[in-house]
């Protein structure tokens, strides 16, 4: 007999213990992300798709020094440099990147490029939706990476 009582008590205790977790969690803040129905939240230092920044005048910060490309362990950054001229000024320095590609089929999001950049032109953004059916789409061009101009150009 005592064994039956003991078993019942133990069951009740175990249930209560188990449900106490459920009950506690019921009143805690929700952590589940409802992606894709709701936007994803990121930690500030999440390393996603890169962003090429602009300075306070709206000029590109990148001076095409190739240091990010040199630092990149998988060599996924491809740059072509060109001269700023009096008529067309793209960056604040003498040169700018006329072509800047990152191949995301190779990028391992290590952040070395960001560390190498002397002008803080490149950082990791929070973009992560890279899936595609065509591998050629994984190469992002400067236009894809560049931060929006500060103000829309006057018309």
């Amino acid at each position, binding site marked *: 007999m005592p064994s039956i009582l003991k078993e019942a008590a133990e069951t009740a205790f175990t249930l209560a213990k188990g449900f106490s977790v459920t009950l506690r969690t019921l009143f805690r803040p929700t952590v589940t992300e409802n992606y894709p129905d709701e936007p994803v939240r990121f930690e500030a230092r999440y390393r996603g798709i890169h962003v090429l920044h602009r300075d306070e005048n709206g000029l590109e910060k990148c*001076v*095409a*020094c*190739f*240091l990010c*490309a*040199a630092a990149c362990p998988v060599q996924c950054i491809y740059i*072509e*440099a*060109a*001269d700023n001229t009096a008529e067309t000024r793209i960056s604040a*320095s*003498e*040169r700018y990147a006329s072509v800047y590609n990152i191949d995301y089929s190779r990028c391992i999001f290590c952040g070395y490029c960001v560390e190498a950049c*002397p*002008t803080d032109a490149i950082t990791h953004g929070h973009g992560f939706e890279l899936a595609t059916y065509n591998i050629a789409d994984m190469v992002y061009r400067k236009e894809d990476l560049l931060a929006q101009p500060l103000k829309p150009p006057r018309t």
Partner: protein
Amino acid sequence: MSETQNSVQLTVDGRAIDVPSGTLLIEACKSTGHEVPSFCYYPGLSLQAACRMCLVEIEKTPKLQTACTVVVQPGMIVRTETPQVAEARKNMLEFLLTNHPLDCPVCDKGGECELQDMVFRYGAAESRFVEEKEHQPEQQFSPIVYFDYPRCILCFRCVRVCDEAMDVKALGIGQRGVRTLIIPNRPDGTLECEECGMCIDICPVGALTSHQYRYKTRPWEMNYVGTPCAHCGDGCKTTLNVRNNQILRGNNRDMTGINGEFLCIKGRYAGDFTHHPERLRQPLLRRNGQLQPASWEEALGFVAQHLKEITKRSGPRTVGFLGSNRTTNEENYLLARFARTVVGTNNLDHHRTADFAALAGALHGEPVRYAASGDLSRASAILLVGNDPTHNHPLLAWNIRSAVRQHGAHLYIINSRRIKLRRQARQLVEIPSGKEAAAIEALHGAPTDISAATQQELATLRAALEKESDVIVLFGAEVFGSAVSRLVEFSRQLPGVTRYIALGDYANSRGAADMGLLPDRLPGYASLKDALTRKKWEQVWGAALPSEPGLHAKQMLGGNQLRALYVIGSNPVRTFGLPQTREALGELELLVVHELFLTETARLADVVLPAASAYEKDGTFTNTCGEVQRLKRALDPGAVRTDFEIIRLLSYAWGTPLPLRSSEAAFEEIRQHVRGYRVSQAQLVAGQAVRCAPTSGHAAADTPPGLVFSADDSLFTSGTLGRYSAALNSVSERDLPRSRL
């Protein structure tokens, strides 16, 4: 120099060394493997002692000394790596950086900058200099040269190389103190010079930069391919800096090759013709009077069919071949073999820019009498007849200047122009144009029609030459035929061993002649008339050879003796000054041209086959002095084909395939059978220039006038290629009279 009584013993960093007396301490240290940092010191240039980077400790001398100006003394005890020395270097760097911008990320020199390397090694990253830095905007000195004042560390290497080594003196020093800067020679702040780019390359920092490389890429992003220059006949080795199948610049920083660090504007910047937009990329076939794109199969089939048909119908003697001064030895050899054995004609020639055949004939059996380009810079006496090496042979001119400057060599010139090298000459005899042969007769003491005064000058010249020994004789296209043998006859009586260089225009002029692109000569200048040699070549080639000498270039062009003309890599309409009509070339049924661009001749052709340039193929070149060098392919030729491939494919389409499958196989055959070309493969593969000396033992037949002439390119032109080089076309000096330089 190396005899024991002339050597000095000293100790560097605890190691006893023996160096020739008179050696500079900095060089002595270098010989022990202790590189003493230096900015202003540069081997071969005068001493400056401006940068104080080379400070070293010398025992019993109270202060640190500049190793670049101290001459070694017996018993000297030198230390190059003490903490005191390191501290001094660090402090000197801090001085150099007071006005230096933090430009490395955008500076063209970043990655190959001597200042950057030094700061990295000795560290002076913290600056105590808080005052505002001197700044001036970047200046464009010329279409080639840019100057960025803040980056200049005032080592004056540029000024000295331009003054002493180039003898141009276009750069000077302006202002003083902290505002000191490099100034160009024109009053409006631009340069008028040879645009050689030596100053750009020698600058240890990024103060002088070139238009072509400026802000385009970075040193570690490029491929480096060392290959002979595609332009003049001197055969400088240029290291092409290639990115994305495009040549961005050439230089020779590792100083390998016969030219050391020297390159003229063509070797440095005129590789840009390779990606000119007008470059031919596919075969063109004339349909309904118009040149229209065609496939390779179609074009080659057309050529083979028509060429064969004409050969059958009107005989092989109505087919002619004009070879090139820019194609490789292997291609020339293959062409000679194709023309002579497959088509069966000796109508084979090229634009001869020097009479190499006459020299080979005059020197028969004496290969040691060919001087190499390097021999010039060590020569004690030089005789130059005709030509203007400053323009036509920039490397040889550089070598002549260094012989005069560094070894006190004596230069004698006989020329119809007051060429720039007169400044180095002991004596210049100015003769009327076209009187070179007469001047040589006058040297012999024979009566001539030159004025008595000039004859007197020539007699003085002769007397001076008779006191010299081991003279090197250079002669241009003005001296040809029997005049060459007369010149050799004269100079061979001079004391010592006289050696010779015939000055031909383009990258492989010498190779074209050596490989037998001549109507009366087989490869190696073997005479076609000699039954024994003919038999030898019949055995090598496995086919009968026509024994009658063929037509030469002038007879082929417009002589109405040909039905078909096959032109490879040359533009006879322009070089021979013909009217730009098809009729001017004679009653041709077929004109085939291999070219890079649609030249005047190509425009008249029935078929134009797009060919690869020297930077897009393998093979060998022989420079004008007879030094063989191997080409390294720097660019992917894409859809164009090498002349070698085209000739080979043509032989297939013809139905008599040539057995040589690759240019290596062709070169092996050349090595085996062309006399004087048995050069070391190992040295060639290692990138060295190997001397060859083709000797036929057959005396030269006299060369008719009008066949040997120089295109007389200037520093800024280079035949067809030069017309398509943006760099060469950009310089303003191109249009100046030559006497200005």
